[in-house]
């Protein structure tokens, strides 16, 4: 299959094509729509291209992300209120430079995987960040809807309404969101009893997308290992590249599907073997079921419940009328 021209060129042209298509389809729509914020987007991470920026102290994607988000977290309360009764405080404010794991101040890091493939040693670099799942439990299960999936596919935490309960981290198969205690709305409510900060993670640079810019990591990658585009286009590129390198795709089925597709020349089972799941360092298991899918049948029953209740009520009423008429006769 011949790769579409715009996809061979790279991210800049890719974005131009995407924006151009959006422009054609959104004549008369406000600027925001033109910026593609309502088009479903995906990103591609091509592990055959990523070299981990070994010549730099900090990989370019990580560095760009840090720079963009450096002022995101407000001043942390001093001292941080001690939660009761479990006294867990997560404070990264004095370790902002950490870049080898996810933290509230670091939304992407690069894992180095040393793999033996057919007796040959191969090094693969794997940028890790939020996968932006298609049906993200982290967002749907947030009790305050502070975490929300946008129309463009970005899963975004609103730091002004997040209480930092870390529920999103608990239900994320990769435990991506990271908590910073001592900031956020909980400080104004009952800081000792309820909430514990704000959860932070990659938001796909939604503000930059709205301004027609690529996410920082995509724009900064010197090897164009990261791409962004419309969902269909990225899926096509991923399939094409995986086919060409006789490689593998990750993210298409995991957790019910995600808006992040990894393409790799080596199996992800092998990559996963090099990863030990730790706080801020997710693994890369291939079998990642969407746990919430198990609740879908019951949820559908709930949606049907009003109709069932109304039908039962009306049938009961009609039946009682029949009984009454019979008795009267």
């Amino acid at each position, binding site marked *: 299959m011949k790769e579409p021209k715009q996809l061979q060129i790279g991210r800049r042209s890719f974005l131009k094509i995407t924006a151009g298509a959006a422009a054609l389809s959104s004549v008369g729509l406000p600027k925001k729509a033109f910026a593609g914020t309502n088009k479903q987007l995906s990103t591609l991470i091509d592990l055959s291209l990523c070299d981990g920026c070994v010549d730099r102290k900090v990989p370019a994607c990580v560095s760009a992300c840090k720079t963009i988000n450096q002022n995101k977290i407000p001043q942390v309360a001093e001292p941080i209120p001690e939660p009761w*009764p479990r006294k867990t405080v997560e404070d990264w404010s004095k370790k902002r430079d950490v870049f080898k794991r996810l933290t509230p101040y670091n939304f992407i890091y690069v894992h180095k995987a040393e793999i033996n493939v057919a007796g040959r040693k191969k090094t693969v670099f794997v940028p890790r960040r939020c996968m932006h799942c298609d049906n993200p439990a982290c967002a749907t299960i947030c009790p305050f809807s502070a975490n929300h999936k946008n129309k463009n596919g970005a899963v975004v935490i609103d730091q002004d309404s997040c209480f930092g309960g870390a529920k999103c981290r608990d239900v994320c198969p990769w435990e991506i969101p990271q908590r910073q205690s001592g900031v956020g709305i909980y400080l104004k409510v009952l800081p000792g009893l309820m909430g514990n900060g704000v959860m932070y993670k990659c938001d796909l640079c939604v503000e930059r997308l709205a301004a027609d810019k690529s996410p920082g990591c995509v724009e900064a990658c010197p090897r164009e290992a990261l791409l962004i585009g419309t969902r269909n286009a990225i899926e096509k590129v991923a399939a094409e590249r995986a086919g060409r390198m006789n490689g593998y795709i990750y993210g298409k089925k995991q957790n019910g599907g995600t808006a992040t597709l990894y393409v790799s020349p080596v199996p992800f089972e092998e990559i996963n073997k090099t990863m030990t799941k730790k706080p801020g360092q997710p693994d890369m298991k291939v079998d990642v079921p969407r746990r919430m899918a198990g609740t879908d049948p019951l949820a559908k029953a709930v949606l049907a419940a009003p109709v069932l*209740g109304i039908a039962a009520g009306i049938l*009961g009423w009609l039946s009682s009328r029949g009984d009454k008429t019979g008795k009267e006769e």
Partner: protein
Amino acid sequence: MTDKILAEKNLIVRHGVLELIEHWAIALSGLVLLLTGIFELPVGKRYYIIDVPGLGWSADFITSLSLHYAAAFVFTVAAMLHVFYHGPRGEKGLLPQKGDFAESITVIKSLFGFGEEPPMRKYLPEQRLAYAGMAFIILMLIISGLVKTYKNIYAPDLSHTVLLWATWIHNIFFILFFLAFLAHMAAIALRPNWPMVRGIFTGKVRLDYARHRHSLWLADVEPVQEPPALTVAEEQAPPEPEPEPVQEDSTKD
């Protein structure tokens, strides 16, 4: 109408079987919804609830959600059945009536020894007001819950504005539901209301209690004491002359 006097047992039927089923379906599923709703907040681990025997699942949000859905199914079916069965039948005894608010205050004052209770119908005025309040709370919980459920399955990218409305309505009315439940329990705890508690378990309350406290209800239910039928002879007999009015001597005393 299920109301029926069982004079030989000194009882009167206050609730039919269906009403009992509706009440308990909503009550028990409502309690499960309250509990699992609380467990949808990240409290299981923080408050060591997971260490309570039998509540190890309290920090597993997916398990809580499954139980929440199961209870929501029962809750919603029962609520809808209640409205669409009793509504068309014209059973309006629980709907608020004019003057209920003022009458409720009189009843509540009397419960604490201030003044007399007015004669009452099948339901107390404050019961009718509480019913309307609870019905509104339940309606809002069901509507907002349905929006959230729909989002969970089909539309994770639902409009954030719609979702925030649904979420906060659900959260606020969850608190109101909890407060209404506490108020309901407090009403039961009051001694004059104890005879009604039996009714919600068995469907029947004591007849002497009903006669004493719900006299307006009994007036509707009890057959009217008609005067004995007149015989033909009595009908034909000329009316007895009315006695001459006695002139009272105002100076007697």
